[in-house]
């Protein structure tokens, strides 16, 4: 087990640092990243996405909705009665195919987008990014801009440091708690949960969920941050695999930035662009802003890196600098590997005319069409008729042949419904529903009833199928017809 740790270096060991065993670090040092805030279109877009996403997430469970069969909450995933309420759409466990289709669509959409413009999900939409962003904003708001935050960290633990760091973490935990609470509120009636939760009457699972989500939100967004993306997240790895040579990614134009003689800070004789061009230096003035704004703490000028979540903030930072020194924008920009290294670079543009993009696009269209169709054609009533197989048939004392059926009726509407059951293809009188005059099913409930069909011997010999017609009284036109087998003596052997 030792061997993998052992490194044999030929030609001297002077490059290695020797820690005495008692000084060897036990764990990887985490270098905290204190990002500089930045203004620009990418930042604005991120803020917009953040506001919309948070508004939807935090407000949705509190939206009231007219509902008879359950609590009046617009979006509620009711695990107890196994129904998901999404506005006027009520889904049942048997609709699981919609969910799986939705997940297929989400996956294909991720592949589709990543092939075109890289890790857009990571940079702008991922929960990890959004919550980290909010927590960084909290730090910025309480502790100030990056230099102030760095200074604060160098101070001894005096009152100012304790107060500022303490209050930012307190706020983060508060946001985390409300995140956890909101999550739990999706699974039960939110106002009720609010009341029960704070009076100590909520279910154990509610407390467990809220505490777990508070802890994980605070840990991932408040402490671990970029480490989640770098060490933990599987999406980070497989999105990188979806990149092509033509994929637009956040890139540093090294040809322009470095020139022949490399990047250099503006100093005497290197202030104007003409001077720099004459001396062979590129446009990068080595201000380091692109590094300071980066939430994963990398230097985009080293080329494409797996840590880059493609948030575009370095583009904003660099463009601001270019504006201030009067150089053209776009030293860091969305561009493709192919274009950056091409001898005849063009303006960066989406390259979608390849099999992969078109294939994903087409499959997306097909899947979405199916989903929309399936949801639009959902029925308010579900009926299943199953023949009782034990026994398949029985001969009555007068020679008639009897088959029995289990009829399962699900009433997915918001009101109580009355159903009548009839048979086709055989005489009306053959159907025996016991003493049930009609079948009353409450809103959102289901029932199993037993039906019997007795046929004269001769008729039974020629009957192989019968049709049940289940008619809801309030909507006779939506009667459901189910064809089932009828077994008689001819199949006895």
């Amino acid at each position, binding site marked *: 087990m*030792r061997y993998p*740790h*052992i*490194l*044999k*270096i*030929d030609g*001297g*060991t002077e*490059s*290695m*640092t*020797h*820690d*005495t*065993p008692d000084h*060897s*670090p*036990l*764990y*990887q*040092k*985490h270098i905290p990243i204190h990002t500089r805030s930045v203004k620009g279109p990418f930042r604005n877009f991120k803020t917009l996405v953040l506001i919309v996403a948070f508004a939807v997430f935090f407000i949705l469970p509190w939206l009231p909705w007219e509902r008879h069969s359950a609590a009046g909450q617009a979006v509620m995933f009711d695990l107890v009665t196994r129904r998901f309420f999404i506005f006027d759409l009520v889904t049942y466990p048997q609709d699981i195919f919609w969910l799986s289709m939705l997940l297929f669509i989400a996956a294909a959409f991720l592949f589709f987008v990543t092939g075109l413009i890289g890790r857009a999900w990571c940079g702008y939409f991922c929960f990890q990014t959004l919550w980290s962003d909010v927590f960084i904003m909290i730090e910025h708001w309480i502790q100030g801009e990056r230099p102030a935050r760095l200074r604060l960290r160098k101070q001894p633990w005096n009152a100012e440091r304790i107060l500022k760091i303490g209050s930012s973490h307190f706020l983060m935990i508060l946001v985390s708690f409300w995140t956890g609470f909101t999550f739990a509120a999706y699974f039960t009636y939110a106002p009720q949960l609010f009341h029960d939760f704070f009076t100590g009457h909520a279910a154990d699972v509610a407390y467990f969920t809220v505490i777990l989500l508070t802890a994980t939100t605070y*840990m991932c967004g408040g402490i*671990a941050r970029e*480490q989640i993306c770098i*060490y933990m997240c599987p999406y980070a790895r497989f999105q990188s695999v979806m990149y092509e040579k033509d994929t637009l990614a956040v890139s540093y134009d090294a040809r322009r930035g470095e020139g022949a003689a490399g990047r250099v800070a503006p100093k005497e004789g290197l202030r104007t662009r003409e001077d720099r061009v004459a001396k062979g230096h590129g446009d990068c003035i080595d201000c380091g802003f692109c590094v300071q704004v980066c939430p994963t703490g990398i230097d985009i000028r080293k080329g494409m890196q797996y840590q880059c979540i493609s948030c575009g903030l370095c583009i904003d930072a660099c463009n601001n600098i270019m504006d201030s020194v009067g150089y053209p924008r776009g030293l860091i920009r969305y561009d493709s590997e192919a274009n950056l290294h091409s001898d005849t670079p063009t303006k960066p543009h989406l390259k979608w005319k390849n099999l992969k993009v078109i294939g994903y696009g087409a499959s997306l269209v097909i899947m979405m069409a199916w989903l929309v169709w399936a949801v639009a054609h959902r029925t308010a009533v579900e009926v299943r008729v199953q023949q*009782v*197989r*034990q*026994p398949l048939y*029985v*001969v*009555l*004392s*007068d*020679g008639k042949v*009897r088959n*029995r059926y*289990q009829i399962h009726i699900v009433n997915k509407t918001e009101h109580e419904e009355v159903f009548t059951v009839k048979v086709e293809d055989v005489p009306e009188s053959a159907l*025996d529903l*016991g*003493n*049930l*005059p*009609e*079948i*009353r*099913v*409450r809103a959102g409930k289901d*029932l*199993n*009833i*037993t039906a*019997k069909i007795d046929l004269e011997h001769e008729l039974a010999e020629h009957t192989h199928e019968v049709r049940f017609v289940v008619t809801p009284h309030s909507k006779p036109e939506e009667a459901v017809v189910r064809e089932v087998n009828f077994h008689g003596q001819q199949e006895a052997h």
Partner: protein
Amino acid sequence: MSQDKAKSVSTTGHVWDENLQELTNPLPMWWVWTFYLTIIFSIIYWIMYPAWPIGTSYTKGVGNTITYTNKKVDGSEEQKTTHWNMRSKLMSEMNAHNAEQKQWFDKVAATPYEEVSKNAELMNFVNSAGKTLFSDNCAPCHQAGGVGKIGFSPNLVDDVWIYGGTYEKIQETITGGRNGMMPAFKGVLPDDKLKQVANYVLSLSGEPHDAEAAKAGDAIFHNEGGCAVCHGAEGKGNPDLGSANLTDKNWLWANVPGQSTAEGKLDEVVKLVSGGMSRGKMPVWGGRLKPEQIKVLTLYVHDSLGGGK
């Protein structure tokens, strides 16, 4: 990356063979702390749940008692409070389930038979609870689905009810049990007369028979043999006695449908008449099942299985 690292990589300081060194590739901090947390978790777990063996006993954990109602062998109930364990957890969950189910049993118990059978919601309960009760208690004899077995137990799916198929009669049968028997006629009647009676019995339900013998059998059936006393003058049976209707196509004790030849069928009937039958025993369920369980079973047998007449 890796090249930058190699330049300033730190080692543990162990050196073998002059230049063979061991790198320290430290674990990430969160990982190390997760490890510590699992240790803390296990200590809390030891305190809270049964964990350590001590001699013949063990630590019971604190603040984890479970109270449940236990039914003893003699039928009496007792409250038990113990430290946490899987069995008491199961018991308390079963208590909760039973309480949940009780509402439905109570509803059925408080509603007359006719009313239950008209209520789709209650019948839904009867269908599922009845099925479980039937499978647990009745199916060993009446077979899965209540199909019965010729020579052993009646079919409950058809419309033949030896002891009557009304709710009241079915309930009576389940509660008090039945003791069906038929005397042996060997020795009472000589062999040739046994054959004649058997031919008559087959003729009642239109099975192949010898018409002449059946005619002679008719007389024996109604006079000398005394069969009509139980089976009735028309051979239609009597539900109060549990005597079979001989005019229908239904056979329970003589396996007539199972024989393909006329001789075989005749033989079956002769065997039954001469040997009699004492196996028509239905056990008493009165003390073993609760009245409301019997009521649900009655409804299940009447409406879900047979559609009793």
